[in-house]
Each structure stands twice: as C-alpha cells, then as structure tokens.
C-alpha cells in the first residue's frame, strides 16, 4: 500500500495551488460570482493552460492520461479556493461519459474540453426524481436520423455556460424502471431547448432545462444509459469528496486564524477550551474526510458494485462531517460568520450544497445499506 502522490501529481498540485493563491483570492472570486456571466472564461482558459482540463483524458484526445488520483488532487485545490468555474460538470461528469462512450463523439468533444474551449454539463435530475438517477420522465422519440427530447431537467450545473449538455431520457420502460434510459447529446442553443438560468446558493451557474422536442444525438447504447450515468455520478461524488476535504481543511485554518486574532473579554477566543475542542473536532473531521476521499478515489475505477459502495460511503461521510465543519466554523466566527463579507460563510454555503448535490446523507446511507445487503426487508 502506498498513499504517495507521483511527482507529476505533486507538480499539478503545486502549480494549481500557486495559481489560485495568486489569482483567485476571496476578492477576485467575489468579483467573478457577482459578474454578469457568473464565471470567468479567462480563468477557465488559464486553468486549461495549466493542463487541468486535459487531466483525465487519453493522450490521443489531447489528454494527460491521468486518473482518479489526479482528479482528487485538482478537486481538493479547487475546493480550497472555492473555484466556481465548471470543472466538475465539464471534466468529471460529462468527461467521464464521453471517455466511456468513446468513438466519434469522444473524438470530437474531448479535445475541445481538454483545450478549454468547451464547457459541458450533465442533466440527470428531474423535478420529481429527487436523487434517483433511474427516475426519468423525460422522453426521447426517434425523429429521422436522430431523436427529439421532451421533458424537464432540474438544476443542471453549468447549463447556462455549456456548449453541449448530456441528457438522460427514456427510450422505453416506466418512470422508475432501471432499463430503457438512454443518454443524449444536445446543444442548449437549439430550438426546443430553454435554459432557465440562475446561480446556485453558493454562486455556481446552473439552470433548469426545459426540452420541447429538442433535437438530440444518442450516445452510448440505447436503453443502457443508467450504468453510464451511475458511473459518472459516482465519479462526481468521489471528486466532491476531495473537494469537501479542501473546503474542510481551509475552514479549519480560517477558524483557527480568526479565533486567535479575535479577542473577547480581554482574551483571544482561541484560549477558550470549548472552542479549542470544537476546532480539534473540525481537524479530525478533515483528516477522516481526506481518508474517505483517498479510499473512494482508489476505488473509482473498481467494478461498479465496489465503486458504488465506496462512493455512497464517502458521500454519507462528507455530508455529515462537511456539515459539521461548516456549521462549527460559522458558529466560531460568530456574527461575522453569517455575513457575505467573510470567506467562511461562502465555504459553509458550498459545503451545504455539496451535501445536497447527488443526494444527501440520508439518501446515500440508504443506498449503502442496500448495496451491502444490510437492508433487505427492513422497515
């Protein structure tokens, strides 16, 4: 067993970390999320220049042949700096599917992603699906060479920025059947597609996507999209585990600094034993979260059952501990913690969002129980 990063991974981490320290501090980020576009294509380009968009892809597609560990390194750093540029939806979610599907579509799109020219998103949720990936009401109908999609996809990260979206739709089966789900590529600019855009509570660009006979291209085998979707979302969860680790570690640092500076009743807050223990608990949560992120990353390429268990477990754990670290950090910042003026509150909001994204703690706890056979006919 070894937990060491390779030299290349260390280099990615260092160059990314330096870049974010220099160019993406709290103030710079604040300007970006308050800008009209809500993201910075310029930063996106610079991250692409650092090679970030190319990390997981094959060399033939202009990629760097990296793996889950490289993604972990990147996501932890993006988390530390609360980067809102759409790395997760583009590279991890859409990227994973394109890689797995391969063929012409991969050849066309992956080089564009790797080069920083294309942002993508994955539209998997629906108004009544909650977190069940197999709950798909959106329908696909054959139309000439291609398909048209009709339905409503919820809260699609990066939807307003994306040049292409991957969408799950039903080619057969009932609303909640595991079979009959297919994946499609759509152009959000096409007729029949309406993106109702907003930012998420933590400043990320997102939108609902309303499809009314929107033209679409099938990718992957018809009716067998669920396995791909689960793979991509598990990868997304594993990436989020690394991101949450970055958040948690940064929140702990910020809280330690704040309580050391801030005096109350003539003594620094950091001298209060109750707050010290709270920070010790934050530290422990961050370390354990890192362990879960590492473990899940090591299983990201394992067989689907192992991968799913590892992802479910990691999501439960980062949901619980991320929420704990965020709430404690805000509490220890006192009033300042709940204003938009300090970084800590933004970390907390993003941690909250990561608990919900892809399914909250309860959901993945239940999923873990089912996957491990703990829950059969339990009531």
């Amino acid at each position: 067993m070894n937990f060491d990063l390779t030299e290349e991974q260390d280099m990615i981490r260092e160059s990314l970390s330096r870049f974010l320290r220099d160019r993406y501090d709290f103030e710079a980020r604040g300007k970006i999320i308050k800008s009209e576009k809500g993201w910075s294509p310029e930063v996106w380009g610079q991250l692409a220049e650092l090679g970030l968009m190319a990390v997981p892809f094959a060399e033939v597609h202009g990629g760097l042949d990296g793996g889950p560990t490289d993604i972990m390194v990147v996501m932890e750093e993006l988390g530390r700096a609360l980067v809102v540029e759409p790395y997760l939806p583009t590279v991890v979610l859409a990227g994973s599917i394109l890689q797995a599907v391969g063929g012409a579509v991969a050849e066309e799109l992956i080089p564009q992603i790797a080069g920083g020219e294309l942002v993508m998103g994955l539209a998997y949720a629906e108004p009544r699906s909650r977190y069940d990936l197999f709950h798909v009401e959106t329908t696909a109908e054959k139309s000439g060479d291609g398909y048209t999609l009709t339905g409503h996809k919820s809260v699609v990260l990066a939807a307003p920025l994306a040049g292409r979206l991957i969408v799950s739709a039903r080619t057969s089966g009932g609303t909640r059947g595991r079979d009959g789900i297919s994946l499609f590529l759509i152009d959000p600019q096409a007729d029949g597609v309406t993106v109702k855009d907003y930012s998420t509570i933590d400043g990320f660009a997102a939108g609902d996507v309303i499809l009314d006979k929107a033209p679409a291209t099938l990718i992957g085998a018809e009716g067998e999209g669920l396995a791909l979707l689960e793979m991509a979302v598990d990868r997304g969860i594993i990436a989020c585990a690394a991101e949450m680790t970055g958040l948690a570690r940064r929140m702990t640092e910020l809280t330690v600094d704040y309580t050391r500076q801030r005096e109350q009743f003539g003594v620094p807050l950091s001298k209060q034993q109750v707050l010290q223990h709270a920070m010790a608990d934050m530290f422990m949560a961050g370390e354990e979260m890192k362990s879960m992120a590492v473990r899940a990353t090591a299983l990201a390429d394992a067989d689907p059952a192992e991968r799913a268990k590892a992802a479910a477990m990691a999501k439960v754990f980062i949901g619980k501990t991320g929420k704990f670290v965020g709430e404690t950090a805000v509490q220890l910042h006192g009033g300042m913690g709940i204003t938009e003026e300090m970084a800590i509150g933004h970390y907390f909001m993003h941690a909250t969002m990561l608990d919900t994204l892809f399914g909250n703690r309860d959901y993945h706890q239940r999923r873990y129980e089912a996957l491990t056979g703990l829950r059969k006919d339990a009531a």
Partner: protein
Amino acid sequence: MDLKFSDREEAFRQEVKAFLDEAWPAEKRGGKTDFTRENYLGWHRKLHARGWIAPAWPEEYGGTGWTPTQRYIFDKECAAADAFPILPFNISMVGPVIYTFGSDEQKERFLPPTLSGDIWWCQGYSEPGAGSDLASLRTKAVRDGDDYIVNGSKTWTTLAQHADWIFCLVRTDPNAEKKQQGISFLLVDMKSPGITVRPIITLGGDHEVNEVFFENVRVPAENLIGQENQGWTYAKFLLTHERSNIAGVHQSWRALDRLKKIAADKDLYGDAPSLMEDGDFVRRIAETEIDLTALEFTELRALAREESGGGMGPESSLLKIRGTEIQQRISHMFLDAAGNYGLPFQRELGHNEATEGPDFAVETAARYFNMRKTTIYGGTNEIQRNIIAKMILGL
C-alpha cells in the same frame, strides 16, 4: 398539578382565535411571509387597535394584564395562524426600559408612538469587533451644552433601514474603573445629521442587519434615559426582557406541521415514494417532535414559576439553547426536503415564489443559512452554557 387549561383560559383562547380569524384571515396563512415595512406595521397596528400589542406591559402603560399562561396561549394561537411576527424592539426592548427608568416626560413623549408603531425603534448595542462582550463598547457621547455629541458605530442593527429611532449604549465616562461603568443609555433620532446606515448582507442574501455610523451626531440631553453612566443597569434589564419567547416553540411546531404536509404531498413526488414513506426522515421528524415537547413543557414550567412570582432567571438560557438548536434542525430538514431544488438561488428578499421547483423550496437554503444566527445572537449558545455553569451550577 393540573396541566389542562382552566375554563377561563379556554374562553380566552376562543377570544384570541375569533380575533385572529377576523384580523388575519385564512388567505394570509400558509407559511408565506413578505417581510416589508408595511406588512410589519400593518399587523402591529391591528394588534394595537385591539389593545393587545404589549401583553407583558403594566396595564397603566398599555399592557393587557394577562397572566403568563394567557400570554402563552396568545403566542401559540398567533403562531398557529401564521400571524406576522411582532418586532421586539418597541415592545420587548425599549418600551420596558422607558416605562421603568424613563422620566415622566419621556414616558409621555415616547410610549404612545412606541405602542402604536408610529416610531419604529432599532437597537444600538453591539459594536464591530466586540461580539458577545457588550460592555467593551467604544461609541462615545461627549456632553456639549444641552446636547451629547456621539461618535462611533454600532453593528448587527436589525432592520435599521426601516427605523425612525435608535436606542443606544454609549460611553460617557472613558475613565471609569470597570468597563461596565461609564455607559449611558441614549435615544437617538435616526434622521439626525451624521448618521449613516450600511447594509450587511448575510448568507442567503438577506438584508436584515446593518452597521450604523455616528459622526458628530448631536443628541439632546433630554433623550438620556435615567442617569448618566448608569446605562449598563438598564441594558441588563433589557437583556432579560429580550428573552421572552426566545425558545420559539410555537413557531417550531408550526414549521413541523408545514414540513409534514410537504413531505406527504403526493404532487411533489409523482410515482416516487414521498418523504413520509422514508423511515429515516420520519425518524428525524419524530425525534424533533419529542425534543420540542420536552422544550415546550420546560417553558411552561418556567412560565408557571414566573406566574407564581419566581421570575425567569438563568433558566432562560436553557430555553434559548434548546429552542435555537431545534429551529436549526427544522431548517435543515426543510432543506433536505427540498432536494435538488434547495440549490437554486432565486429569491428576492422577503418573497418566496419559486421560479423553478416547488414554492416551498425557494427559501429553504436561505432560511437554513439565516437560522445559523440564532445560536449566535442574544449571547452565543456557548455563553449561555457558561451562564448555566456559573449562575445555576456555581462552577
């Protein structure tokens, strides 16, 4: 021991219900609130017209003469009807200070508009960098003829953007031995030259609190409450008054009711099982109901002690701690109930119509964030535990 309401109390409840049915009809109920200045004042004035705006005040100043149990019934029925909240600044805070420590002129001048809502008060206590250590305040007031000249700043001033007047703690003797000495209690017209208000936007985008700056603000000395340098006494008096209904029990029950309806609403789930079919969610609701029941009866016992003249005392810290913990838990359950639709930020302050997703979801995240304040304000829950340890357990 008898935990049933007496016939008299039951009759009173009917009276309150009848009033609410007329004054706050069904179409206003259902959890939607539009926190505008007009809405606040509208409800305030309705209660004032009925003579019920200040139940806890002595009757001679406009109080109702109700027992604590009647006040409890009144609060419960108002919450059950989703009635607008009454702002505490006039009724629970400055009013009691004025009628207890103010001069006859001050009572005459300020109490009627404080009751009627013609003056909207805000509270100038906290200062930047001071946190829960209130007495370390640095805003200065220097006597100059018939005026004080005030310089400094206050923060966390709730709804200062709407306020007509502010009641302030200011330092009048910078050389006093202890920091609690040398503080005075001043009433200041917000329209005075030299006052500026800077919004503080909190997580979730609310503009609820402000920083208030004083730059050479002239305040007539007749606006001083009580004696110069004795302000800390009045401030502490106010802080104990502020604690009434700090547990928010009725509001939490009401919120749980709404949550259960949402979690069972088949329209939201279609072919999918509803949240009420999810044992883990049911368990969270049940646990919260049980904890809330324990808190409710602890509050009732405290009320009974108050009724028999025992006073509230440091037990109020318990109500504050548990009440706020429960409020936060409920806000988290709402967020979880919203699922993916907890994520979009599509909210204008005070409105709650969703552009996407179910209506209830639109403010769940903002509310969850906003509720973090409850364990911080009014003395953090850490400080409340310090108080219990010191004042009750003698540690």
